[in-house]
């Protein structure tokens, strides 16, 4: 891996203008490419999932589909193992697991994505404000934020849901707020690093306004680290919302969502049914893939001398 990085540097280092930072293309490792494949796959499924699903998410499969010649006249349709009728088997009510996963992609990924966007909107706005604003603003925002950060996310979620119940808008807003606290911290520290740099000082001396400095100097310099952070935060939020759904406190039936699908079918686990396993594998393929991509990107931007020497 280290050899690859070296060759990339040698190829491009002298082609750029001397005053522009050398642009290196990210070269993904095999695991990164697998990650990209799965992420693209799930994005596709969010868009077209319900159209390619073999059944509707709420359809109970007819028992006549499962009759084997010479077998039981009326077989149970629930917890069926994978077959040609239902490729991933059926769930505890005899619904097609594959179809429900494809429908659920939209719910799970959609809710998590909107919540992540909200967390970023709030966290980055306030974080940059704290970084460029007065000391008083920074102090008050940071102390307030620290207090919220010292409550475990799941506890915060449980308390809010106990008080106001669980609907999709509440779920999104709550998750957005909870994760905005950690985005705030990242954005603030990145912003502060840029704020004290020489080029910002030069801009100030030049007489540029605060808005100009924020949009032209600070934001472009924090975008890349924030983008990798966005990936990780998105993963945490998917896991958080799935966990809540798994506890029966997130997305409510009859909507299909990966976390609640696991909860519904947990009863089949002792009998070896794969119905609870499949939706959690769906979550796993997505979250592991995002992490693999992020890993490749941060390996590309990092890489210390002594790590390679030892």
């Amino acid at each position: 891996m280290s050899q690859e990085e070296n060759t990339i540097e040698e190829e491009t280092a002298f082609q750029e203008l001397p005053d522009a930072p050398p642009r290196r293309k990210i070269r993904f490792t095999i695991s990164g490419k697998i990650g990209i494949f799965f992420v693209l796959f799930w994005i596709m499924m969010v868009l077209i999932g319900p159209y390619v699903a073999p059944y509707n998410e709420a359809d109970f499969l007819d028992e006549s589909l499962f009759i084997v010649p010479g077998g039981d006249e009326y077989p149970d349709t629930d917890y069926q193992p994978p077959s040609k009728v239902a490729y991933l088997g059926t769930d505890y009510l005899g619904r097609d697991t594959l179809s429900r996963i494809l429908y659920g992609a939209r719910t799970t990924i959609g809710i998590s994505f909107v919540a992540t966007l909200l967390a970023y909107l709030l966290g980055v706005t306030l974080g940059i404000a704290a970084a460029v604003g007065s000391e008083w603003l920074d102090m008050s925002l940071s102390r307030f934020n620290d207090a919220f950060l010292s409550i475990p996310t799941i506890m915060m979620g449980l308390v809010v849901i106990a008080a106001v119940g669980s609907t999709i808008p509440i779920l999104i807003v709550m998750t957005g707020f909870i994760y905005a606290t950690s985005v705030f911290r990242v954005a603030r520290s990145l912003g502060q690093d840029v704020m004290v740099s020489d080029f910002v000082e030069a801009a100030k001396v030049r007489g540029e306004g605060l808005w100009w400095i924020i949009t032209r100097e600070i934001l472009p310099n924090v975008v890349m680290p924030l983008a990798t952070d966005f990936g990780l935060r998105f993963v945490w939020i998917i896991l958080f919302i799935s966990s809540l759904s798994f506890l029966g406190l997130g997305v409510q039936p009859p909507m299909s969502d990966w976390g609640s699908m696991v909860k519904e079918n947990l009863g089949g686990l002792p009998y070896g049914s794969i119905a609870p396993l499949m939706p959690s594998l769906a979550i796993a393929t997505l979250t592991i893939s995002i992490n693999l991509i992020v890993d490749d990107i941060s390996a590309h931007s990092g890489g210390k001398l002594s790590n390679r020497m030892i």
Partner: protein
Amino acid sequence: MLVQAIIKRILISFVTLLVVSIIIFIGTSLLPGDVANIILGQMATPESLAALREHLGLDQPPHVRYFMWLGNLFTGDLGMSKAGSGIGTVGTEISVMIVPRLVNTLRLAGMVAVISIPLAMSLGLLASMYPGSRIDRAITFTTLSIISVPDFLVAMILVMILAVQLGWLPSIAYLSGSETGWQLIRALLMPTLTLVTIVSAQIIRMTRATILNIMSSPYIEMAILKGVNRKRIIMRHALLNTVGPIVNVIALNMAWLIGGVVIVETVFAYPGLAKLMIDGVQTRDLPLVQACAMIFCATYVILLMIADMASIISNPRLRHPK
């Protein structure tokens, strides 16, 4: 200086806990309808509501209620749960409900800590000794996978293998309270294994990152340039300097255990504090949720404090801030 820094950190934790208690209190008093309403439910008449409100002090303004609640917390009076409430009774004392559950959860957490800390530290050390090697890649990939999948998937895979396929262990961890010795360990084993897997993965990653971070510091680079061999560098130069950060990592992970406990106790129907809290959330038993949340948050804040103290003690620069 050291004592001052530590006292300062303790004071900060104390203030944090106060703020946390305010957040929890406000969070659970957001909605109209109060505890008296919840307790009486269908049987509420205006007279009985007023009487119960007065009994519970709900006729006071919010800030007075908050201080009453806080004062009661300090004296160990956690209030009344709605569980078991009916005509003539106002529910169960929360402290009575909580104590046995807390013991169960602490038992679980204790077992997890005893197993996962030595295991994870040695694997983390192993991975960081040979960065980029096959064993390091295997460890890094496995731990990355474990931390990026939902906790309940880890639990389910273990159930699939150990309970369903091999039939070695029970797939739920029900405790009747009369188990002793081997029975108790057997019941605890599945939830413990699940949590050990989750927590170890995090500790391994953080240990590896910490050691590699130290390995890239100038004095290690100096040692490399001097020609000291790798094992000697790690054992002599790096290891002592990692003690502080690693205690920090362990305390942080014990704090994060809280999130895992919530899921694992639900999967295995383990009668711990987190399960009690989830049941409380489902039945909207707000006093119970408040009490459990306070216990979890206090544990969290204290562990974070220990983590910070480890860094302060081990790092002279933090001990003498400029």
